[in-house]
């Protein structure tokens, strides 16, 4: 048995279904050995997308996504995908081929120090120096990626190690790491403290982030909010934790959040932050949020607590286990006045927003993006997976997405353009029975539309909406406000005709150019289970 055989055997032990990748000489032994297994390989069209597809797969299944690429440029191309997974704490394992061990360090053809390059955005990385270490390293890598605070693990493996003979293959039952023991259970004393403070508080609020999804704690959080009647807001990564029609839910906070969510955060006297980083885009002045309120910060990563804001009650632990412990406690007093106030804010804002939207819809010559997203969400299947890209389309998606029983993915931390289509590919492979829709702008589309070939090759029917305005909309919008309409390097003239792109990749194509046809066109778009590209024409002056 060779090292490469051992690698794929480990993947089978980990019940890996798919490997997203791009071959090259330095990873050729691995891709040769994988032919002897039932693991399915997906050839992406650029290495970065292998990591994004693994990311979409991981977010859909809760399992580790796997990508494998070659050395040098293959490895450096996947860096953005690794960084994207790191920023959102998504469990993926990336295997990179490396030049022969004896040549490492001599700058030979296609050699790159990928572990060095990725050090600051992997959870951990390995350079395999001995073929007999493969089973242990693989076991550890999968465990590290998908425990504690999830994240990408990189395994760099020289070609000679892949070819070397392994003495005896023993896949360990568990990873034994003396340096890594993630805290799972929340401290009982701290949990009691939270409840003691809740009893004194009159305006508590829960702010949920992506950590709640990663811990699969959505139900526990919903139950806690409902049982204790505490309002909930979310960060961008926390979208989908609460169902949109949950009476305790008050939308997204932050720069791009809604006014009542932010107002609720400002006026609260106690914030329970769960699985959120308190980063600049969601909390504008982290220092100030503790000024006149109690901050409870729950996170599986102790380093996250107190990084951006000093909490009064830090609570380290797995979000699911902490909220399950919360739910064992007797429910606290009710906050009727507070909830009534928030509901009034919400109603007032929503009414105004709706009136304003109807007015815009009536006047618009092209499609009003918010109206489109709302109607799209209404027509999606209950459990559809919605992948938003980055840019104005993301803001419109986040602001108007309606969560029922589906999932919502986006590149929140890194804001990587071109994430949505490859991530949607991973999601669709993970749940072939579910509707998977990627919503993307025309800028990001041109960063990743080579993946339409992957979809075509492997018959992966993803629905793609391209919100097209001929500009890099979010930067244009920034230049509009900050530089008085001095638009610099944001004009996308020269972009291809999308109908021809769709034709070239044998996709159905639908064009939507005005508000009156939104409903019918979406019906046609979602009417079958084939790959469809929908072009939605939006005025460049629309503000997200």
């Amino acid at each position, binding site marked *: 048995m060779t090292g490469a055989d051992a690698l794929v055997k480990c993947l089978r032990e980990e019940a890996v279904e798919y490997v997203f990748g791009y071959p090259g000489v330095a990873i050729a032994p691995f891709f040769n050995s994988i032919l002897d297994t039932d693991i399915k390989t997906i050839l992406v069209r650029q290495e970065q997308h292998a990591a994004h597809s693994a990311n979409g797969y991981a977010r859909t299944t809760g399992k580790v996504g796997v990508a494998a690429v070659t050395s040098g440029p293959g490895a450096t191309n996947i860096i953005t995908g690794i960084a994207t997974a790191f920023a959102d704490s998504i469990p993926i394992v990336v295997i990179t081929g490396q030049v022969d061990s004896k040549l490492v360090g001599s700058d030979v053809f296609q050699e790159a120090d990928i572990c060095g390059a990725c050090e*600051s955005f992997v959870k951990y990385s390995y350079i395999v120096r001995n073929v007999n270490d493969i089973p242990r390293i693989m076991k550890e890598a999968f465990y590290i990626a998908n425990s504690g605070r999830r994240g990408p693990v990189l395994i760099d493996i020289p070609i000679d190690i892949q070819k070397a003979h392994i003495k005896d293959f023993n896949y360990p039952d568990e990873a034994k790491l003396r340096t890594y023991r993630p805290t799972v259970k929340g401290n009982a004393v701290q949990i009691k403290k939270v409840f003691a403070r809740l009893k004194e508080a009159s305006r508590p609020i829960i702010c949920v982030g992506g950590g709640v999804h990663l811990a699969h704690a959505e139900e526990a959080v919903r139950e806690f909010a409902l049982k204790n009647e505490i309002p909930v807001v979310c960060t961008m990564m926390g979208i989908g934790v609460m169902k949109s029609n949950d009476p305790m839910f008050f939308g997204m906070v932050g720069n791009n959040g809604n006014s009542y969510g932010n107002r609720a955060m400002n006026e609260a006297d106690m914030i329970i932050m769960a699985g959120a980083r308190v980063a600049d885009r969601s909390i504008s002045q982290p220092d100030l949020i503790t000024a006149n309120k109690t901050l409870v910060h729950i996170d599986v990563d102790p*380093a996250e607590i107190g990084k951006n804001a000093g909490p009064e009650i830090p609570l380290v632990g797995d979000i699911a286990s902490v909220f399950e412990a919360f739910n064992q406690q007797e429910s606290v007093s009710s906050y009727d006045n507070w909830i009534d106030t928030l509901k009034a804010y919400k109603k007032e804002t929503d009414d105004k927003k709706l009136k304003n939207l109807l007015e815009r819809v009536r006047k618009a010559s092209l499609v009003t993006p918010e109206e489109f997203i709302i109607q799209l969400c209404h027509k999606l299947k209950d459990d559809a997976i919605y992948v938003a890209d980055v840019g104005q389309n993301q803001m419109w998606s986040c602001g108007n997405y309606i969560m029922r029983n589906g999932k919502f993915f986006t590149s929140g931390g890194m804001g990587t353009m071109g994430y949505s289509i490859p991530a949607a590919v991973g999601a669709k492979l993970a749940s072939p029975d579910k509707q998977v829709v990627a919503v993307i702008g025309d800028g990001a589309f041109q960063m990743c539309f080579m993946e339409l070939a992957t979809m075509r090759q492997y018959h992966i029917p993803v629905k793609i909406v391209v919100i097209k305005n001929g500009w890099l909309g979010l930067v244009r919008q920034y230049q509009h406000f900050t530089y008085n309409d001095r638009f610099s390097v944001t004009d996308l003239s020269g972009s291809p005709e999308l109908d021809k792109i769709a034709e070239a990749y044998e996709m159905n194509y639908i064009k939507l150019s005005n508000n009156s046809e939104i409903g019918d066109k979406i019906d046609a778009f979602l009417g079958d289970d084939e790959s469809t590209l929908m072009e939605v024409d939006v005025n460049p002056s629309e503000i997200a």
Partner: protein
Amino acid sequence: MKRIYSCLVENRSGVLAKVAGLFWRRCFNIDSLTVGETEDKAISNMVIVSSGDERTLEQIEKQLNKKLDIIKVKTFDESEGISQELVLVKIRYNRDNRKDIMENCQIMGARIVDLSKSMMTIKMCDTPERVQMFLDTLKSIRIVELARTGTLAVTKIKEQSDEK
């Protein structure tokens, strides 16, 4: 504020780079860093002295603990530890300043470990403050070469906690 982080780490290649990279990426200061093997060859001890505000110093400890190659981090203030530093300084002397230098060495407990007609090498091992104090006395003299280890530190003995 200064703080000392005494870290037991896996004695593997790349660990120093990973730890140094962490300080660089997160804009933490490294005032000094020393690395050496422990009694167990598989484990090295890294003593890092850093300075910053309370939040930064706390973050450093948490981020160090997060590193998978770090087995254990002991954090303490200077007052809670025994810190020592070694310096070797080669200077050029003349008849006028020779006596002063030798007197200073005697006062500060430094030793002359190498000597020629015009040059001498002095060794001093003491707390970082006293090492600095001694080096300050050499300011007017031409230093030819200087090598300094950085701070080594262990926590002060507390019978009960150390017995555990």
